[in-house]
């Protein structure tokens, strides 16, 4: 019995080590081979909206609690792009900061609530109240927000499918 258990354990360990991937790959396998520069995506975001890209860069920030997003530095100073993944599907490690990540995903855009003009929680209410007749300095602020409503600032992110962190 002892011999059988030992052989079983040795076999299991051997097979596991053979198939182990080091834990540096996240999500699905990367399918693209040509990387796109982050600066190129940020300069022409509409062109990449909805398209699958492969990017590479330093991980400069990681979601602290759930590892559900990482921020990748661009090839130019001051530039970075956020890679968001479905909660639990991929969990980026908190110690990935500073390491190089190769990420495949789809570019998508969001309008952050605070920049979505007067729409959404808070903003809508604030403008609604002011529009009831209060013509003050605040009303001017509200008008500014109304202008923003017409031209909301889109933020471009990448929905991560797979990644390799080196």
């Amino acid at each position, binding site marked *: 019995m002892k011999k059988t258990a030992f052989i079983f354990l040795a076999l299991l360990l051997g097979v596991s080590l053979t198939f182990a991937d080091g834990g540096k790959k996240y999500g699905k396998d990367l399918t693209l081979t040509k990387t796109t520069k982050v600066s190129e995506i940020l300069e022409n975001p509409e062109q990449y909206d909805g398209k699958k890209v492969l990017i590479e860069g330093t991980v*400069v920030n990681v979601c602290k609690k759930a*590892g559900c997003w990482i921020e990748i*530095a661009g090839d130019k100073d001051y530039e*970075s792009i956020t890679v968001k993944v479905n909660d639990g599907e991929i969990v980026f*490690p908190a*110690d990935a*900061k*500073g*390491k190089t990540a190769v990420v495949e995903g789809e570019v998508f855009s969001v309008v952050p609530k605070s920049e979505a003009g007067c729409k959404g929680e808070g903003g809508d209410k604030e403008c609604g109240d002011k529009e009831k007749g209060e013509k003050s300095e605040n009303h001017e602020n509200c008008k500014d927000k109304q202008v923003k409503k017409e031209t909301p600032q889109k933020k471009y992110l990448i929905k991560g499918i797979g990644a390799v962190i080196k």
Partner: protein
Amino acid sequence: MKWRKVVRILHRDFGYLAFGLTIIYAVSGIAVNHTSDWNPNYVISRDSLKIPPTRDSSLSKEEMVAYVITNLNEKDSVISSFKSSPMVVDIFFDGKSYKADLKTGRIKAEIVEDRAVIRQTNYLHLNAPKKIWTYVADAFAVILILLSVTGLFMIKGKKGITGRGKWLTVLGVLIPIIFLIIYF
């Protein structure tokens, strides 16, 4: 051999086999159940440091990094850096990072350490290894089903499934159903 004896043997031996994985999945289950309260894999500590500020906005990223590590007398090796604005640089070390604002001289330090044992249990529980581990986890799930079914029929009489066992089993089935009715 009587069928109840077979049930007991199966329950006993699969119970031994499942012990290790049950502990791993249970410990990790508690850990990942509270992700809104803590990071189950890492202990992240923060600190504030101060260096003499500078108004020189012409510094390159490399010069900014050198300015910070010299003033902090930092001995660890820099693995990478990122200039997030003209006067702010992020410096990354193994398991540690600094976000330095050279204009104010304020530095936010962040140290990331593994949560020993729990991180490893989460790694297995959340199937991070994938590949063959997927099948090991599947086999474990089948063993758990087997353990729960054989557990019902291990003993007969008042304490068996026909006695108080049936009420406890009904209770165990009702608990998730009640929660589903309330929350789902």
